[in-house]
């Protein structure tokens, strides 16, 4: 009971800090490039209006950037404080991208950030522009290394288990770096940041147009924001497709939960909208959905690039499917237990100097090592993540992503033909789409992280094995401490941001 509570509170604390952090990071990723583009126009044209526009968005960027740093520092150290077993078991692989992130990205960001904000009169125009671009590149490099680390957790490659140190060790750095899962996640994640930045610029500029204030600057901002948004929303959709393809190949339980698919078959469609049957249990014969609208063949095609492809469902993955050569979770758990026992025997034999016994145990371990993590699961149904949360989060994310593309397209078109004035409903929709961008980003991460439960490392290490051995009270204390401080800081951030926006672009 105590262990289960500790796992839940550790999960809750990480989820809390990650969700807060992700409220601020996407805007940094996207707005940094939009500002760099605006400043480039200023340097190219010499038009001071563009300088004023750049400075206005830069002020909002700084307010957001500060709280992004505040919520970010805890993330790195939480791997140690709350997931110390994880830090040991995979630290040999996972620690490297985090350290490289600090070296390559953080120093670049923090050094050139000072020039970007305080260097207008101290360095040349070109040096200043270069600094702005380097801040944008630095923040995106940071995302790259974090997603290399996260991608590895979703699809572990380039490593081997060392029985003597009892941990996973890196065997090929390039495999870790060029992990296809990491790249699809990186591209999709930065894409969502770019779209968020665009929604922010377009939405706030739309508010100015609705109020009839700073019209010229707002229109110019809209053109940049909507152009960037349209291009990057296409990029977001394409990278999302690739990301889902990777999920189909490597994380079948996540895919099944994303689509609420219980019984696998060929030619599977995608549920465009639907309501899950809340009484549905794994293994029963009840309907999967209360109602749904489906796009035929789409899941088979998008997941496996084949209209006829078989897509395994939750029941296939739990109970196995001989016809499709899918092993049951029960069988995997049994093999996992054999691996754990063999490792234990190996270590005891080594300690007592019985080399022959150690060798036999090692061979048994190597035969079953791919199931090692399964050995720590108690029940076969544990391999399935929370279906409803994953399903609805995924569909909200996809629906909103499609809406953003449409919004940017219409706004850009109307801007180009100079017919945006008076389109009050559209402008209001643009304003209300700002919070939708945050919702889309958060739901995306819920799909990625909740969808891979119970694994902290897919198929290798369950979350329950990864926590620190601290008391529940200690984690509860820090959970509430962070919940309070992050909420207070977020309120401060929103109030400051809204005041700056209300003060208008002229103030800058």
């Amino acid at each position, binding site marked *: 009971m105590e262990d289960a509570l500790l796992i839940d509170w550790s999960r809750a604390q990480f989820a809390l800090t990650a969700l807060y952090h992700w409220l601020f990071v996407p805007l940094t990723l996207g707005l940094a490039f939009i500002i760099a583009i605006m400043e480039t126009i200023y340097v190219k044209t010499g038009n001071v209006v563009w300088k004023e526009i750049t400075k206005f968005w830069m*002020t909002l960027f700084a*307010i957001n950037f*500060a*709280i992004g*740093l*505040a919520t970010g*520092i*805890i993330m*790195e*150290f939480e*791997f*140690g*404080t709350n*997931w*110390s*077993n994880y*830090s*040991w078991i995979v*630290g*040999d*692989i996972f*620690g*490297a991208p*985090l*350290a490289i*992130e*600090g*070296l390559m990205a*953080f*120093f670049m960001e*923090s*050094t*050139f*950030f*000072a020039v970007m904000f*305080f*260097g207008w*009169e101290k*360095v040349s125009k070109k040096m200043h522009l270069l*600094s702005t671009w380097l801040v944008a590149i630095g923040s995106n490099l940071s995302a790259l290394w974090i997603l290399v680390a996260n991608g590895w957790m979703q699809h572990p490659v380039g490593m081997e288990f060392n029985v003597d*140190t*009892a*941990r996973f*060790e*890196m065997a090929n750095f390039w495999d870790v770096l060029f992990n296809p899962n990491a790249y699809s996640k990186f591209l999709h994640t930065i894409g969502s940041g770019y779209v968020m930045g665009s929604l922010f610029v377009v939405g706030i500029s739309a508010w100015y147009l609705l109020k009839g204030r700073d019209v010229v600057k707002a229109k110019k901002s809209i053109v940049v924001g909507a152009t960037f948004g349209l291009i990057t929303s296409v990029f977001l959709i394409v990278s999302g497709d690739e990301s889902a393809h990777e999920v189909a190949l490597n994380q079948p339980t996540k895919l099944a939960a994303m689509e609420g698919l219980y019984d696998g078959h060929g030619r599977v469609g995608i549920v465009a909208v639907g309501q899950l049957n809340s009484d549905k249990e794994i293994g029963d014969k009840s309907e999967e959905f209360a109602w749904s609208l489906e796009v035929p063949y789409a899941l088979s095609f998008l997941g496996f690039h084949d209209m006829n492809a078989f897509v395994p469902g939750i029941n296939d993955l739990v109970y196995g499917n001989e016809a499709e050569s899918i092993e049951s979770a029960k069988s995997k758990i049994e093999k996992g237990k054999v691996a754990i026992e063999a490792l234990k025997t190996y*270590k005891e034999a080594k300690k007592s100097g019985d080399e022959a016994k150690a060798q036999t145990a090692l061979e048994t371990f190597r035969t079953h090592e791919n199931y090692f993590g399964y050995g720590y699961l108690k029940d076969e149904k544990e391999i399935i993540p929370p279906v409803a949360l994953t399903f609805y989060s995924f569909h909200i994310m996809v629906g909103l992503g499609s809406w953003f593309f449409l919004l940017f397209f219409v706004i850009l078109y109307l801007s180009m033909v100079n017919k945006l004035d008076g389109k009050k409903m559209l402008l209001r929709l643009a304003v209300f789409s700002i919070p939708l961008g945050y919702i889309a980003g958060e739901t995306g991460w819920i799909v990625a992280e909740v969808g891979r439960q119970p694994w902290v490392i897919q198929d290798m290490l369950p979350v329950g094995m990864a926590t*620190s*051995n*601290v*008391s529940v009270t200690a984690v509860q204390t*820090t959970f509430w401490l962070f919940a309070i401080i992050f909420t*207070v*800081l977020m*309120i*401060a951030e929103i*109030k*400051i941001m809204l*005041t*700056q926006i209300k*003060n208008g672009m002229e103030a800058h």
Partner: protein
Amino acid sequence: MFEDLELLRLQQYWWFIVSLLGGFFAFMMFIQGGQTLLGRLGKTEEEKNVIIASLGRKWELSFTSLVMFGGALFAAFPLFYAVSFGGAYYVWMAILFCFIIQAISYEYRKKPNNFLGQRTYEVFLYINGSLGIFLIGVALATLYTGGNFIKNEMNFSSWTTETYGLEALLNPFNLSFGLVVFFLARVGASLYFMNNLDHENILKRARVQLKTDALLFLAFFLLMLAMLFLMSGLAYNSEGFFMVEHKFFFNLIETPLLLISFIMGVGLVLYGIYTALFKASTNAVWFNGIGTIITVTTLLSLIGFNQTSIYPSLSDIDSSLTIVNSSGSHYTLVAMSYVSLMVPFILGYIFVVWKSMDQTKITSQEIEADAHHY
């Protein structure tokens, strides 16, 4: 190049890199020191704005140095990272909390409608500069004095006290180490202001403040050093762990390179203080800063070399950590060693940017004219 090095050499190389990062972070702590002097050196709103502007252009480098220090420990010594952070839970969480509240304070302090009020953000900066820095000192001191942890055959660790690291505050050496770091940061801050500001009133007060802080720094430094050289340290060989009297003193004199660098580092720190106090030098921060980097790097290196434990266990001596039993694999250390070759490049661009931004000293007029001043 690095592939040919033995694992032990790579472990030593990485302990040196970690020590160097610790040294760089200690130098950058002048930011925190400055934050604690805000009310003492800045008596008017205008003076406070000048001080905040001066620190605000550098604060992220100290923040990044801390993150980098943690990242390097994670990558190179994952077992140390797991045992210390996962065990001394309350201490590390308190440190992190102090840095969370720093990160927003510069930007939000003067912004209209900032919810908590200017004074609260200044208190946040003070907490970061005092408690945050003091606790980092205490946490680093436990590398010499040890922690209450045990680990099993799978290297899963657990802490044996319910206070999760706070008990370190009862150890006099840990406390004096924390106070040394605190006063060193304040000395560094006064020297930095002398170099960075053109403001008569602030500089006049900084010179007075420097005398007090330098005296307290020296007193605690000598106390800490005496305790360090007198204390026993945990050593190891192929048989296991054992205590050695005056271990750190012998580590220093048995390793001439460390002895020379220690004397050089302390000499530069003291020379920096001397030139600022008696020669009115504005460049003392560089002597003091380089001296700080060298001294702290040496003090941290003392633990990693000469078969010394980098984290003794007070609960089970056999659970103690060394650079050998807590490091990453040969492959990872090699890969990370290539990455470490970027360090001179990074230091290079930091130097260039710092120089170009600090060509002229900060004045009140400049701050008033800057729409985006903190």
